[in-house]
């Protein structure tokens, strides 16, 4: 053994069954032959027994396997709280609304503009009709000078009359 600490660690490892067969035999010989090693061995043995008794008397041993116990703690750490869940849902909803607004708003504006333009177009067409009424011009091209054309403004009727004698008359 290099030094006292090294000896202490080896003896502790022996009691914890962490040594290989060769090293374990070496420590067993040491515990028999050397006084200091015996003292350390007694000390470790005594404290191990004390700890074991405490576990048994006060029930400090884990009720469930070690892995399961820590898995539970890990899941509680990583599991989001109710506040996190609610705030996450609210944020998600707000984001969706924002996305819809971002998409729908321009479409709505364009649709409104189109509707206004169509209405304005119709209004302009009616206005044009009125203007064309005021600038009403009739062009009649006939070979026969006897053809009569006249306009009834109140009824909105233009008549072109062909005063030919009817067949057989």
């Amino acid at each position: 053994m290099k030094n006292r600490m090294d000896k202490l660690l080896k003896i502790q490892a022996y009691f914890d069954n962490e040594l290989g067969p060769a090293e374990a035999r070496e420590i067993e010989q040491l515990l028999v032959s050397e006084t200091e090693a015996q003292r350390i061995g007694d000390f470790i043995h005594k404290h191990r027994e004390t700890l074991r008794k405490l576990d048994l008397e006060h029930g400090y041993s884990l009720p469930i396997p070690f892995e399961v116990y820590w898995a539970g703690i890990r899941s509680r750490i990583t599991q989001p709280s109710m506040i996190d869940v609610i705030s996450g849902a609210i944020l998600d909803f707000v984001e969706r609304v924002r996305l819809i607004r971002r998409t729908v708003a321009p479409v709505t504006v364009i649709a409104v503009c189109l509707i206004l333009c169509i209405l304005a177009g119709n209004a302009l067409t009616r206005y044009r009709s009125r203007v064309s009424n005021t600038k009403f011009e009739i062009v009649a091209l006939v070979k026969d000078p006897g053809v009569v054309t006249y306009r009834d403004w109140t009824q909105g009727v233009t008549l072109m009359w062909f005063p030919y004698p009817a067949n057989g008359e």
Partner: protein
Amino acid sequence: MSIFAIVVCALLFRCVIYAEDRFLPMQLEAILIWGTNDEQSPDPNHKPLEPSIEAKLRSQPFKWKKYFEVNRQSTNLVAKAAAKLKMSQECEIEVLNRGDSTVEVTLIGKGQRVGTVVQPLPPGELLILGGNAPNMTGWFVVIRQRGKDSQ
């Protein structure tokens, strides 16, 4: 932003006006009418005339008391498009949409072009071509634009 919106609206407005002028067809209808003083038409195919047109004919200085619908033809014409409508064996009309609610109507009788009239024809107005028919009766071809105002 507001200037951009105004420019976009103006462009849209111009596009709508252009599209309306260029692509929306003018719905034209031509009705061949027979005017008589008899209460009944001897031809069972003749129908009673639409009251609104009959009222307008009655308001004119014609001597006839009854008007019957002989034939009805309709066509949809985009700007600068023309169509020939056969109203009877001997009577045809050729209609040209000159745009801006103006029509050019040519009367063709027995294959001969008898006369042409060019005038605005907004919805609700009538262009009537007429003449004498045998037995002191009369014929009319009424051309009108079919629209929501026409009736």
